[in-house]
């Protein structure tokens, strides 16, 4: 070989790689992608898509559905949960790859983020429910005479009830939907009534991912927290989106009373990993064991299981 030390140089470099990994206990950052990505902010996906959109009231497009649908495709994990909760599950022929609840939902490769019109049409649906129409799916399916129901992420708790009611109306299960929402309201009220009443208002930090994206009190999750008298430490940082990224300094300075982790699945965070972060062991919430591990899905969907979310919040509140 003309340059015998070329492979040696590479080997040395690769050895350096292994050595480096050993130094570093936690996940790293880095990147490829064109330079433009560095100039765009990505708020965490699930909730961020809600922020810039019109109020959560549902809208229908496409030809008006003449009769109750028999073949529903749901590309919204929230709508999937609602459909099954009101007994419309048997009508659902396909759900998107994120609809992991309930277990019997017919999960497919279909995607709500990058919908493929042909693949959806191939399911021969007579109703498609989506939570985001940035891909102009309603228009495309409308050309195929497939009705589309857009149920944007809820802005308020009333939006949740309205969307469930609308699904009930569309599927001929209005009475079941009304019964469900009545039960949810009662359960939610009971969860709030049973929750500990702190002597002074508590402040929380709700973690969306491990780079400290969070929610303000004006978001949907923030409103649920408000039911319990909690306010977000991020309210001063509201950038209009409702989902600002806080600096670690700001979180430590704010010293929240309770920390809710909505990144236990996406980012594998736990009370243990939070306590192990540099400086975080000094926080009130960490010292008082008030770091609540939430299910990412529960904390980011706006369907029937908001009651479970609320119960998890209540269960995590410090009893003083």
């Amino acid at each position, binding site marked *: 070989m003309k340059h015998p030390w070329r492979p040696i140089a590479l080997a040395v*470099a690769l050895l*350096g*790689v292994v050595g480096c990994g050993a*130094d570093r206990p936690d996940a*790293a*950052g880095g990147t490829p992608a064109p330079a433009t990505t*560095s100039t765009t902010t990505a708020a965490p996906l699930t909730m961020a898509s809600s922020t810039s959109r019109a109020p959560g009231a549902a809208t229908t497009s496409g030809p008006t559905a003449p009769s109750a649908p028999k073949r529903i495709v749901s590309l919204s994990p929230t709508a999937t949960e609602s459909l099954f909760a009101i007994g419309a599950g048997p009508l659902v022929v396909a759900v998107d790859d994120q609809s992991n609840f309930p277990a019997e939902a017919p999960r497919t490769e279909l995607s709500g983020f990058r919908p493929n019109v042909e693949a959806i049409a191939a399911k021969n649906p007579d109703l498609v429910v989506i939570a985001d129409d940035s891909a102009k799916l309603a228009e495309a399916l409308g050309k195929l005479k497939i009705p589309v129901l857009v149920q944007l992420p809820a802005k308020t708790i009333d939006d949740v009830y309205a969307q469930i009611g609308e699904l009930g109306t569309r599927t001929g299960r209005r009475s079941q939907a009304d019964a469900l929402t009545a039960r949810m309201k009662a359960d939610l009220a009971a969860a709030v009534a049973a929750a500990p009443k702190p002597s002074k208002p508590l402040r929380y930090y709700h973690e969306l991912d491990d780079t400290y994206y969070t929610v303000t009190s004006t978001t949907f999750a923030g409103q649920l927290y408000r039911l319990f008298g909690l306010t977000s430490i991020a309210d001063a940082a509201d950038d209009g989106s409702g989902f600002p990224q806080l600096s670690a*300094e*700001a979180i430590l300075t704010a010293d929240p009373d309770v920390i809710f982790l909505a990144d236990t699945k*996406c980012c594998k965070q736990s009370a243990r990993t939070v306590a192990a972060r540099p400086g975080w062991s000094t926080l009130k919430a960490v010292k008082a064991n008030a770091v609540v591990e939430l299910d990412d899905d529960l904390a980011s969907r706006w369907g029937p299981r908001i009651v479970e979310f609320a119960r998890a919040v209540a269960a995590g509140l410090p009893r003083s």
Partner: protein
Amino acid sequence: MAVAVGPLGIGTRAPVAGSRIAPWLACGVAALAGAVVIGILTGPAGLPLGGSLVEVADHVLPVDLDSGLTAAQATILWEIRVPRVLLGAAVGWLLAGAGAAYQGVFRNPLADPFTLGSAAGAGLGATLAIVYGPATGSWPLDPLPVASFAGALLAVAVSYMLGTGVDRSRSATSIVLAGIAVAAFFTALQTYVQQRDTDTVQRVYTWLLGRMSTATWDDVRLVMPYLIVCSGGLLALRRMLDVLRVGELEAAALGLHVARVRLAAVALATLGTAAAVSVTGLIGFVGIIVPHTVRLVAGASYRRVLPLSMLCGGAFLVLADVLARTLASPAEIPIGVVTAFFGAPFFLLVLRSRRRA
């Protein structure tokens, strides 16, 4: 600490070729030291200035000082702010130094740490680790940085071999072209894998966008050995890079082994890039703008461009991060937005004033 580890080690030890380099180096060291002090004194927590300096001195100097900061304030300063400032300095240092080296090696003003596919390779490696990697909680070492390093090095190795293989003359242009093709290919693979698995897409995005906001001492400790190796190696090559400036044939005629110099510089710069990228994600712009600004102001000799790019790159990124942390306080602004928003106009200003002069 930053001042001690960072600039002084190289600034004072580098053999001064020509009497006019020393003042430039002094300016660079002063800029970096000033930036680090500003970085340590500013932040959303609003700590008392004097107390902060005393607290840092308490940690750095072998004396016991009472800063008057509360325990919480001291934690914020020493565990959050200082490592972030030092990491910014190290990453800016590495990216700008690597950019200067790439531009010298390939005699291409657009070469930077990302042109040769190293960033795309790092992204693919990390994405593969996130999507297909095993649960890593119990592993003694995290496969993510390892995978991103491996990806970066693989991409550059492929670029280099393709670029030199197709063209007997080993021209710099063919390597950059190969790098662009390899970067596109790796980016396509990365996007495909990322889109295949929506469960992990958020983690991938988080990684791609960088993690300056979560800097820790572990990150600083991870980067430092690479900073020392890469800086030392590249600075040792500075005279050869100067010879290379006259042209490949001419350099070869002068007795320089062009391919070896190029390989060594590329390997060192890639290692530095990969180290920087694996802790903070993609921070574009630094590797191009800082070396060019240095060239416009201080001249094109690599004996100046390399060390000054490192010093000024560190200072630039520390100051950019100060703005990222404080402008929207207590919220963060992505560092890439700040570097481009303030760096681009500044660079154009320098460009214009030099053209006129």
